[in-house]
């Protein structure tokens, strides 16, 4: 495949960022919006084309004679060389998951670009301050995210990993005058930075022992004829490298496990897994389209993508996979419980995102080649795809509602179904999909995940089914509270809420349509951990499906009973379990814990003492030297009295002593 189109996929967003960032303020708002959207549109077409060629052209670069999909490095440029083989390269790796991610990112990004044209204006069509800026930042984000998914080596991934973090920082802090937005953006950056520290150390360990950064070397499952790869050979070979290292076991884990767990820590940060999840709910301070793009569909799944990318390595050390499973399962339950109590609709969606990403993590954690040909891997990627679509849809709907009502709080919504019919229907489709109702896309992907959990054991299966039920419950709680509950009251002097202009409505409809049909994509044919395509319907377990469907329907019915009409039942529920409700409502006090750690321990316990130590002890020592020198000179200053007679005395005594000494010596 020629490198032109892949280069353009990366270059266009980068160019748009520089162009809009530097020249944006010299053009009209409308112009900036159109240019930004058009740029993304072109990228979208190119990405679709690339994905199409990869999946369906059948050229020997991409698929071998047996029909297995191959990894193909389109180009790979040396960027920074450390050692002969240890080179950071910037390149473009095409394989099933990167091609799929290209589609996801460009689709959502284009929708968001389009949507922002409408969202970033007020009701009179006046553009918000900084309209050009958001397009520049969105382009930067798209560039970074695309660079991340097509990374040919782990360091390229780290580079773009940092860049998406930075663009996320810029976008969360878009309303930089608001202190809450500023602190949210800071929190997001620092928490993910902390996670990236683990990622970095993991990379260092991994690259030190294997002597390469390249994915194709590390996970050489199915590599196309590739001039760039050194090819370390089989999994056994890599295992041997680690087993023969100087310190094969460190604190109870093998070095490879440590490397993989540390790398996963980076993924935990970006994908908001417990306990590094605290930044994501706050990140909702950003504009809603941004939340849809970054904090629902693309950036937050980077952690999942990372694990998927290194999946063959993870398979070598299943301890790391077990850890991923546990972290994912706990996070899924935690986030789902919290989501049941939140008032802010974007927060509910944020926690729902955390919970859904945890589903993907669990799915990767339980995936084993022995069971259903590694179904979990495919399920995870499938869920990533469908989730990106329906969660972006839900966020964009939420954006439309917030734009119409002017508040994030559902108490100021209620009964919007008559006012905003399009939003209502599309939101409902999103809810049905996330709840896992046939035939919407979420049903299929979630069902695959539950199947693969079942393959791993009963515990993860029951646990995740329960969480799936909770998911259906809180999503429909949200749905009923927004669109039903009671008639909508319009505050004095406000407009009636209504469906938004076409730039905002069209993306909703498109995404809803995708959500309706995405479940029927034969995903197993396209994506699998080793490139071998298979029919996942063969692994479709109707008993699992019907159980999960039943759970979802029951949960929806409960939600309906509780929230469809105004009634005292929710109040009763809350009073029945006050402690649980309070803990959930306060998100199990994680934020308070972090505040305590950062402010009380790190700032007051480490930084201030160090600053004090520096000013008083170290500086004091240096000043002490100066002080002693000064004092000493003052002390001997008295000798230089300026009194001649004193000098004469001293002189005479000296002469006498000298004479005496001389006399004694002579005698």
């Amino acid at each position: 495949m020629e490198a032109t189109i892949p280069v353009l996929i990366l270059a266009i967003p980068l160019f748009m960022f520089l162009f809009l960032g530097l020249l944006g303020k010299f053009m009209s708002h409308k112009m900036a919006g159109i240019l930004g959207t058009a740029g993304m549109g072109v990228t979208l077409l190119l990405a679709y084309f690339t994905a199409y060629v990869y999946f369906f052209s059948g050229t020997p670069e991409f698929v071998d004679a047996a029909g297995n999909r191959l990894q193909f490095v389109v180009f790979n440029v040396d960027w920074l060389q450390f050692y002969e083989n240890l080179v950071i390269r910037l390149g473009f790796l095409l394989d099933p998951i990167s091609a799929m991610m290209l589609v996801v990112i460009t689709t959502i990004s284009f929708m968001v670009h389009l949507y922002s044209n409408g969202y970033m204006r007020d009701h009179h069509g006046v553009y918000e301050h900084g309209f050009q800026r958001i397009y520049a930042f969105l382009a930067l984000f798209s560039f970074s995210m695309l660079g991340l998914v097509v990374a040919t080596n782990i360091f390229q991934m780290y580079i773009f990993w940092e860049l998406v973090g930075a663009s996320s920082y810029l976008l969360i802090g878009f309303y930089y005058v608001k202190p809450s937005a500023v602190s949210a953006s800071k929190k997001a950056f620092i928490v993910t930075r902390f996670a990236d520290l683990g990622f970095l150390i993991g990379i260092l360990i991994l690259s030190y022992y294997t002597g390469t950064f390249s994915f194709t070397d590390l996970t050489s499952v199915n590599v196309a004829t590739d001039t760039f790869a050194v090819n370390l050979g089989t999994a056994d070979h890599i295992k041997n490298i680690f087993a023969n290292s100087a310190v094969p076991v460190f604190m109870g884990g093998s070095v490879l496990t440590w490397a993989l767990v540390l790398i996963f820590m980076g993924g935990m940060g970006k994908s908001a897994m417990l306990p590094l999840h605290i930044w994501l709910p706050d990140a909702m301070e950003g504009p809603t389209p941004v939340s849809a793009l970054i904090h629902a569909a693309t950036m937050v799944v980077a952690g999942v993508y990372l694990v998927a990318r290194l999946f063959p390595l993870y398979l070598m050390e299943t301890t790391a996979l077990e850890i991923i499973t546990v972290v994912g399962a706990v996070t899924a339950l935690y986030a789902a419980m919290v989501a049941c109590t939140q008032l802010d609709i974007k927060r509910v969606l944020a926690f729902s995102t955390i919970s859904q990403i945890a589903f993907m993590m669990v799915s990767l954690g339980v995936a084993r080649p022995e069971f259903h040909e590694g179904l979990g891997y495919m399920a995870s990627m499938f869920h990533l795809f469908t989730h990106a679509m329906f969660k972006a849809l839900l966020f964009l709907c939420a954006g439309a509602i917030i734009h119409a009502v002017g508040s994030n709080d559902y108490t100021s919504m209620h009964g919007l179904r008559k006012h905003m019919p399009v939003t209502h229907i599309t939101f409902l489709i999103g809810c049905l999909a996330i709840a896992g109702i046939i035939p919407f896309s979420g049903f299929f992907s979630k069902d695959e995940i539950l199947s693969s959990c079942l393959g791993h054991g009963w515990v993860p299966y029951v646990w995740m089914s329960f969480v799936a039920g909770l998911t259906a419950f809180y999503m429909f709680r949200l749905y009923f509270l927004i669109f039903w509950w009671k008639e909508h009251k319009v505050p004095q002097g406000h407009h009636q809420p209504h469906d938004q202009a076409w730039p905002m409505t069209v993306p909703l409809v498109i995404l809803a349509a995708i959500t309706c049909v995405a479940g029927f994509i034969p995903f197993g044919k396209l994506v699998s951990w080793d490139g071998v395509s298979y029919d996942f319907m063969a692994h479709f377990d109707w008993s699992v499906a019907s159980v999960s469907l039943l759970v979802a329907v029951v949960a929806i019915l409960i939600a309906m009973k509780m929230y469809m009409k105004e009634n005292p039942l929710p109040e009763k529920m809350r009073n029945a379990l006050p402690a649980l409700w309070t803990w959930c409502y306060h998100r199990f006090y994680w934020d308070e814990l972090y505040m305590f750690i950062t402010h009380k321990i790190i700032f007051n316990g480490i930084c201030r003492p160090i600053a004090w130590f520096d000013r008083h002890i170290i500086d004091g020592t240096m000043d002490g030297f100066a002080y002693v020198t000064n004092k000493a000179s003052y002390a001997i200053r008295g000798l230089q009295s300026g009194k001649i007679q004193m000098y004469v005395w001293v002189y005479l005594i000296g002469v006498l002593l000298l004479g005496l000494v001389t006399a004694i010596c002579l005698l």
Partner: protein
Amino acid sequence: MDITILYYLVPSLIMFCCGVYGFITRRNMIAMLISLELMLNAVDINFVVFNRFLYPENMEGMFFTLFAIAIAAAETALAIAIIINVFRSAKNISVSDLSKMKH
């Protein structure tokens, strides 16, 4: 009675010691100046005496003394001029009280 060199040197020594004593103990500048002159003259005597007794054929000691006397005169004039000026501004010529320029 033979007049030896000692007859000259002992008075000169006494004179010198008086000068030193006066220079150290006196606080009055005039008195210090006088003491200084005493020491100077004691030294002059020594010059002449050593010249006379040790190298009678040479005259350097004599000349040196003459120079010293001339310089002492000039120096005394200068010193007294300074002292008078100091007295005019400070109304005082005691060295222990004149510390204005020290700090």
